[in-house]
């Protein structure tokens, strides 16, 4: 069978190329270099932006790595009261977007918050009599990021420890090597890539954050992009700043990719008798239980329960027309994007399976880059070409037919959908790929030899086999879209609010209690993929 020429299948070259366009556009902005603007930026705000972004990422990354790796270590090697339950609960913080925990903690720890009030009642001190750490600071942000993002490190480290062959320890023993040296020169180096990989993911999330840093008033690259775009109305400058942020994020992605490559060689996949965790006794056991509970309490239960309490103070808000409208907007937007994402991901994943030429495979792989890139950057990258097109069309139509078309594309939901597509494509593709890799080419051939046509193949073999991974992919992207803040904020049509946007706006107006209802909705939705993750982990 002769392969048909590539241009006959634009879905496998034009489509991924278009998805890559927003990233290219951001870099292309350097074509219009404004020396005056940049000398202004470099002497005033840019050092702050860069320093804060890097400081936050490094601090949160380091702290999350420490927290996640120690938790994984404790749970893998030791047995103590509550261990099994902790294994399930420790990934709960994934359901809390950083901006939501930031609002929650601000309300909890502020001067008028319950903790300080209680403290004052207890001690009889008044305003200014005592020192209390400021939540809305770089240090506060680092702690909060680490609290909600440590599960990335925890999950990867746990998987890495579980994937290590117990034979390695036995081999060390037969070679006369002590346990300490086994830990130091075998276990540690073999686990390190997992910790670094998780840390890279944490740092990517920190770079992408807008809601927290904006609320805390920390000038970073993301807030700088917003300011340059809206405050200074300088699109080129915003795009150029975006390219800086994008480069940082892509560098992290390379680190993550590298660590994953290492891990592939490190995991033998040999199932053996797994190591029995060591029983902790007495004080040490309770200390372990206490410290894990404390992490869980701080990272999830306290802020989530606070949201619950506040949202129940105004029970009517749950049924208000405004809330229902928000819910409707968010759900329909997420559903629409999910369908679009699944279709595109399915098409591309099939392309990969098809044995396309190397350049097309690379193009498809590159079209998934968006997952590493902050939503702000993607929004700028989507907005730019669309508004250029709109302006051109408007001018053209006016000159030719005297009709003004205005912002035909850039002001609509279409722009949002495109941004989500670019940002979350990799998530959907990854879930589908793991499903499709289980359909061996020999199964296709078996079906064909039994008289199954190509369309029948899809309906009778592939879709039933892909059902689970389709649902997984759908759930993951649905919730991701629901949570996404900066891209939505930048691209949403006029007067079109979602849960995330409203949470952000209410919190920015210091109406933290009112923000609790939409915030809690997002957290509840976020719990779904967490449950799914636990189910998968329990199975393996």
């Amino acid at each position, binding site marked *: 069978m002769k392969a048909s020429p590539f241009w006959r299948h634009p879905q496998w070259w034009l489509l991924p190329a278009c998805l890559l366009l927003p990233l290219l556009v951001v870099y292309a902005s350097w074509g219009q270099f404004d020396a005056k603007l940049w000398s202004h930026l470099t002497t005033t705000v840019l050092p702050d932006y860069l320093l804060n972004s890097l400081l936050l990422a490094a601090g949160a990354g380091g702290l999350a790595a420490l927290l996640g790796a120690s938790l994984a270590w404790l749970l893998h090697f030791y047995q103590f009261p509550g261990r099994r339950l902790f294994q399930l609960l420790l990934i709960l913080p994934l359901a809390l977007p950083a901006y939501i925990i930031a609002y929650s903690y601000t309300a909890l720890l502020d001067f008028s918050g319950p903790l300080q009030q209680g403290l004052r009642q207890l001690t009889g001190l008044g305003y200014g009599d005592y020192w209390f750490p400021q939540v809305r600071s770089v240090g506060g942000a680092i702690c909060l990021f680490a609290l909600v993002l440590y599960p990335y490190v925890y999950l990867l480290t746990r998987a890495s420890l579980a994937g290590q062959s117990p034979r390695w320890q036995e*081999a060390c*023993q*037969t070679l006369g090597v002590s346990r300490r040296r086994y830990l130091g020169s075998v276990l540690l180096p073999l686990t390190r890539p997992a910790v670094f990989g998780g840390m890279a993911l944490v740092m990517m999330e920190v770079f992408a954050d807008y809601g927290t840093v904006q609320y805390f008033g920390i000038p970073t690259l993301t807030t700088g992009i917003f300011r340059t775009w809206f405050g200074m109305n300088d699109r080129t400058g915003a795009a150029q700043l975006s390219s800086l942020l994008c480069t940082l994020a892509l560098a992290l992605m390379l680190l993550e990719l590298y660590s994953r490559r290492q891990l592939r*060689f490190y995991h033998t996949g040999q199932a053996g008798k797994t190591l029995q965790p060591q029983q902790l006794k007495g004080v040490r056991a309770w200390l372990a239980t206490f410290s894990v509970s404390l992490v869980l309490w701080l990272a999830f239960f306290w802020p989530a329960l606070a949201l619950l309490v506040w949202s129940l103070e105004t029970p009517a808000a749950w049924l208000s027309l405004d809330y229902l409208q928000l819910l409707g907007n968010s759900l329909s937007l997420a559903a629409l994007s999910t369908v679009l994402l699944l279709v595109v991901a399915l098409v591309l994943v099939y392309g990969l399976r098809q044995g396309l030429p190397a350049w097309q495979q690379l193009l498809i792989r590159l079209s998934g880059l968006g997952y590493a890139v902050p939503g702000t950057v993607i929004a700028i990258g989507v907005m730019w070409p669309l508004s250029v097109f709109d302006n051109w069309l408007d001018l053209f139509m006016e000159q030719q037919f005297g009709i003004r078309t205005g912002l035909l594309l850039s002001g609509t939901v279409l722009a949002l959908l495109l941004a989500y597509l670019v940002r979350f494509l990799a998530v959907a593709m990854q879930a589908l790929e793991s499903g499709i890799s289980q359909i061996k080419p020999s199964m296709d051939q078996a079906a064909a030899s039994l008289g199954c046509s190509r369309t029948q193949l899809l309906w009778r073999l592939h879709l039933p086999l892909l059902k689970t991974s389709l649902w997984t992919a759908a759930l993951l992207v649905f919730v991701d879209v629901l949570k996404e803040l900066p891209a939505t904020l930048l691209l949403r049509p006029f007067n079109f609010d979602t849960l995330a946007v409203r949470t952000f706006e209410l919190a920015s107006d210091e109406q933290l209690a009112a923000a609790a209802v939409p915030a809690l909705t997002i957290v509840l939705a976020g719990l779904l993929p967490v449950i799914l993750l636990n189910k998968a982990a329990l199975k393996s």
Partner: protein
Amino acid sequence: MLTIKQLELHYGDTRVVQDFSLALATGQIGCLLGPSGSGKSSVLRAIAGFEPLTQGEIWLGDSIVSSVTVQLPPERRKVGMVFQDYALFPHLTVAGNVGFGLHQLPVAQRRQRVMQMLELVGLTELADRAVHQLSGGQQQRVALARALAPAPALLLLDEPFSGLDADLRDALARDIRQILQHEGITALLVTHDQHEAFAMADQLGVIVQGQLQQWGSAYELYHQPVNRFVAEFIGEGHLLSVCREPAGDVRTALGALPVEAPSDACWLLVRPEDITHDDESLLKAQVISTAFRGSCYHYELKLHNGELLSCQLQSHHCHAVGEWIGIRAELAHWVFFSDAGSRKCSFR
């Protein structure tokens, strides 16, 4: 060198090995042969010190290393082990893996020993490669070099060739035997493949359901099996029923026995090489299947009373299925079993 006395092992409540004794002299290569799940790997792991005993003793040289009360930790036994999956450290190079157990040596001496080991297994050029870049056979050599580097008193090999292609297996088994003999290493190997066992070992044991059935040379196991388990596990062959006629004659389907059979003999072991083809012979058997094996044809035959035999004839002898051919029995070893299954006696 290695002495095991009345070993018994349990996994939880299930007894996996019982009443297991053997002795291996210095410089000998021993082999435990048995079907999967027979408990042979458990014995090996007990010798290495990974499994506690519920009964018996394990001695290395003249010191006891395992008993119900004593369990010397694995790292202090000086017992090297080659694992079934090799268990190479993926983050280290070939040289790093081989030198891993030499941490107490100074750097220069360590390097020298590593090169010496790599030379021994023929991998000197690959010293700086990552282990995942090696082929299965090369990884297996690295695992061997790593285990031999600290000069262990005893080397254990757990199914060392199971991950390799058949033709590679034979070559590697020969090579490794040479290396072990050259270095004068005492080794115990575990496998389910008798060709491997025959190629490697001086002394072999067949282990079935946690019990050592017989311990001896390959020749003894093949020609003088002590019971039906061993006879059926090692080599091919069939059992013919032995019947006594009122006149006192003892016969099988092959005719009257030219040797005296023990009084309770019920079965006679007939190996394929005991049967030859002779058109003149009055003894006939029907061909029920044939298999071409290159140098010979393997025939399954049916005797007039319905009992089965197998034989190997030169490959230019070609008989069709269903044909009756003349055969002659020329047994060098007369192996009888009683009904209970154990061997009664054998004749040369």
